[in-house]
Structures are given as C-alpha cells and as structure tokens.
C-alpha cells in the first residue's frame, strides 16, 4: 500500500462518513418529528425495547434482513438506510484502493483486499443469517 492508496482510503472514509451521518440525522429527525410516519408508534416503543431481538421482531412485525427496504417510507426504516450507508463506507474505501494495488502488482495485498471485500459483502448481503 503506497501513500496514494492510504490517502485515497482516507478521503473515501471521510466523504462517506459525512454523507452517511447527514442521511442518518435527517432521517432520524423526520422519524421523531413525525414527518415520516413510524411503522411502530413511537409511544409504544418503551414496551418493546426491553425485549430480546427475536421477541421484539415478533411483537412489532418488523422484518429481518433486507425486508426494511420495502418499508422505506417509514421513519425507523428510513433511519436504517442511514445506518446501512455508514456500514458501507469501508466497503467503498476497499473498492477504491483495489485498482491501484493491482496496477502496482502488489499481489499479496490485492488478494487480501479482495478477500476482505468478499467477507464484508457476505456480511452485508445478509445471506449468513438469512431467516424468514
């Protein structure tokens, strides 16, 4: 990894974080202000946040996996979009440095980056914990 890749990685992290946090804050603001309707009424949430996650999903009817994408008009799921952007920043940074490593024939590090991308994308895909 040269100085160029390290700086590029840093720039992508910085920009990606700024965008993600902005989306997260705006979506959350819309959620708690009632601009984006809540799927589970806000005043009912204190009844659910003490439950284990399985029971919480069963009682609220909220989905697992990527199911929230179909509910994006709701405030809490819109906020999850901001969270998923935040958890995608590192993936984009890895994608950004890969061409440079391949171009400089840094084979070992390029392989590590590709393996890491595989792991991160596997986690992001939701395949590992897929349940109905």
């Amino acid at each position, binding site marked *: 990894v040269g100085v160029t890749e390290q700086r590029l990685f840093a720039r992508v992290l910085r920009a990606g974080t700024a965008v993600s946090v902005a989306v997260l804050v705006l979506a959350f603001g819309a959620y708690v202000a009632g601009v984006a309707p809540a799927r589970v009424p806000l005043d009912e949430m204190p009844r659910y946040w003490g439950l284990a*996650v399985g029971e919480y999903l069963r009682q609220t009817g909220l989905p697992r996996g990527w199911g929230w994408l179909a509910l994006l008009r709701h405030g809490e799921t819109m906020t999850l979009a901001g969270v998923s952007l935040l958890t995608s920043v590192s993936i984009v940074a890895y994608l950004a440095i890969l061409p440079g490593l391949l171009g400089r024939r840094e084979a070992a590090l390029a392989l590590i980056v590709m393996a890491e991308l595989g792991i991160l994308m596997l*986690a992001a895909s939701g395949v590992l914990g897929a349940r109905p």
Partner: protein
Amino acid sequence: VSLGPPILLATETVDVTATVAWWVMPLALFLATMVLGVLAVIGGLGGGTIFVPLVSGFFPFHLDFVRAAGLLVALAGALAAGPELLRRNLADLRLVLPVALVASASSIAGAHLGLALPTSWLQLALGAVVVLITGVMILGRGLEFPEVAGPDALGRALGLGGAYYETSLGRTIAWRVHRTWTGLAAFVLIGLMAGVFGIGAGWANVPALNLLMGAPLKIAAGTSVVLLSITDTSAAWVYLHEGAVVPLIVVPSVAGMMIGSRIGVQILDRAHPRVIRIVVIAMLLFAGVRALLKGLGAWA
C-alpha cells in the same frame, strides 16, 4: 364506581420505564453518552468499550440492542477519526489490511454467536470481559518504541513497516513488526469478542499491535482506530440484518458520543485525566461485577 387504584398481586411486576413518555429514555441516553464521550476522551478510553457495559447496566434496553448500538458507536467514532490518522501516517493501512481480514471474519462469527446465546450467559461473559478490560486498563502500559530485532517471514513478505514523524523527538521513526502469525491469531479472538459483545476492541487491539507485534505505541493506537472501522462494519451488518438496530437507541448514542468526544477534546487541557480515568474504571468495574451477578441470577 371506582374502588381505588388496582392492587398488584405479589407475583406481578411492572416495568416502570415502559410507562414513561417514549422520548425520555432516548434523551437520557443522548445526554449520558455525551458525558461518556467526554469521559472517554479525557480518560483515554475507547467510547465503544465503555458504552456497552455502562448503558446495558443503567438503561432498560435489552442487551441485544445495546450491543448493536455499541458497535455503531465504535464504528462512527472510528470513521470520524480514521481519515486524519491515516493522513498523518499515525495509522498504517498496510498493517490494517491483514489484521482486519482475520478480525472482521471472526467478528461476523462473534455477532452470530452473541445473538444465539442466552442473555444470562452473555451477561456473565460480558461481566468477565469487562472485569478483564479494567485489569488491562489498570495494569497495561504500552511500550513507546518496542524492540524489534527483525521482521518475521510473513511481516517481511507483506512489507509490514513504515515511518512516521515523532513530534516529541523531532525526528522520523522507522518501524517494523514481528510475530505476525501470533498477532493474527490474537486478532481472531479480538474480532470474536468485538462481535459477541458489541464493544469497540481498542483496549485489546493496541496491546496486540504494540506489545505482541512490536508496532510503536502511536502507530498501534492509530492503526487500532482504522481497524475498528472495518471489524465493526462486518459485525454491524449482522446486527442490522438480525433486526437489532433500533433507531431510538442507536442515533442518540452515536450523536451523543460524537458530540461528547468533541467537547472532551476541547476541555482536555483543563481536565484531570488521572481522576477521570479512575472514575471511569470504577464505573466499569461496578458495571462488570453487576453484569456478572445478573448473569448468575444474583442481581435482579
């Protein structure tokens, strides 16, 4: 005709927090994490490390949601600080890449394990880990410039080493690492714990990079931050897909910790780090023992 307030049977319990307005706990969480952010910076402790034990100990949220929020708190903090550390060469991407690979893979396994284990087991294990963390914090002293006679074969093959400008000495310090395989093995365990408990693993990353692999203390601390931004990403996806990310818990926590950290940096010069460090370690120890007792069923 009202006969007065209903009488509770002795076997019935009421969750008092479920009767307060929905915004009270998120607001309290925001204020509390802001204070934690200040204390974390001044006490030199990771915000993600102290978040899970303290919030799970003192708020009514289930441990599943607190662990997911803890990962996102650590992730947001790492993403905020990482770019500047990389720009100033205080974090080394070449060192991050192999270590992050094993840590992120094991953190996914850890996240699944954490969501599958019974809460009482998790409380017990969390209590033990938090007591261990306080031990590391009390006893652990890093080596500023560890002696590395020569790099091992893997470290040499991957070119793990570099140079940074040490302002306190006014010169450039060249560094390299050794015991790379042992270090990678340690990060399998560290990633697993990060995934299971949702705690930022800075408390373990820094000693592993510094004392085990021989990276200078500043490089170990900076690299640990960038490492968190990758390890916590993979585990956070698992919690997100399992439905454990609750916006009313996550967003106040992330916002509070980020604002608190900035305030902490501003007042760092006027604070008493030693006193604050002792206070935070005492709080952690209390939360750890409490989690242990809850896990054993000895604390209601």
